[in-house]
């Protein structure tokens, strides 16, 4: 649990100061490391709020990080189940 909180803080710092692609790669690594890293969706939303343009009209491209992280999370569930070497 303690390790997870540390990684949450690191990801938050990365979302604020690092380039978006770095945060993307870092979150993929964390998704692999932890079993159910569901809070990744929140980080997507945080990045959309900090950098994006949230308008009254809902456009998917204004929430591109949220959608990206949801897709990554769902893909990770799917892939982890099928990986032989992954400790389920």
């Amino acid at each position, binding site marked *: 649990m303690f390790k997870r909180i540390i990684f949450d803080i690191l990801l938050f710092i990365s979302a604020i100061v690092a*380039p*978006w692609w770095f945060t993307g790669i870092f979150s993929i690594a964390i998704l692999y490391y932890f079993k159910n890293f569901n809070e990744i969706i929140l980080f997507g939303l945080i990045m959309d709020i*900090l950098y*994006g343009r949230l308008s009254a009209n809902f456009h998917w491209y204004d929430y*591109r990080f949220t959608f990206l992280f949801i897709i990554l999370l769902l893909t990770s569930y799917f892939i982890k189940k099928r990986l032989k070497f992954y400790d389920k």
Partner: protein
Amino acid sequence: MKMNYLLKSSNFQNRRKVVQKRALTIFIILIIIILILFTGLIRRALFSIALPAWQAENTILNSNTFQYFKSKQALINDRVVLEQKLFLAGNLLALNETLQTENENLKDLLGRKDSKQNTILATVLVKPPQTPYDMLTIDIGALQNVKIGDKVIANANIYIGEVSEVLPHLAKVTLYSTPGRKLSVVLGASSVTMEAVGIGGGNFNIFAPREVEVKEGDVIVIPSITANVFGIVEKVSYKETDSFQTVLFKSPVNVSELSFVEVVI
């Protein structure tokens, strides 16, 4: 003895617990998402955490500390790039001066004086490539009278975008080059007003009739009483059979290298 019923599986109970745990996590995340989206308080708290971090990052990156660690080759490369930029800047400056003189003369002839715009200097805190959005975050906000829709200029007279979100201490600027964004511009020497469409990264597209005379290097301006440069034509392409031509142009400002901008209030 033969069994005709299934044993209660502990595996089934474990799986149920896991499902319940997952459902609970997703439920909590959903509640937090709703709180973030629909309450300004959390958004403001988020920006108040990010603002000092961005300011510190900006100070560190703009300081000369890292110059001591640069290799000789990197410095030579930097010099070559800077020389090229200086050459381009010289060209732009000459063009700017000519246009400005011509503009002032014409306005004098027509009895219209150039009204000086009120601008505030702002530091760029976040810019591409830190963000994939064509947006900037600047360090002035509602407390400095910045409003949504205020125009933002860089390098003294180049329009780059408009303020789209304002918080007390910072504001977000949506660049004109945001994909899909449309804007009226005046094309080159022909002075034809056309609609430019942003395609990201400071680039724009114009679909113009073939009759409109435009060539590489032509200046594109925003219709305004004050002299300005909006872009420089990079490429003009068309097929012999087409009645339209595609004009690709680029803003002379490299957004990823911007440190300061001015907000017209």
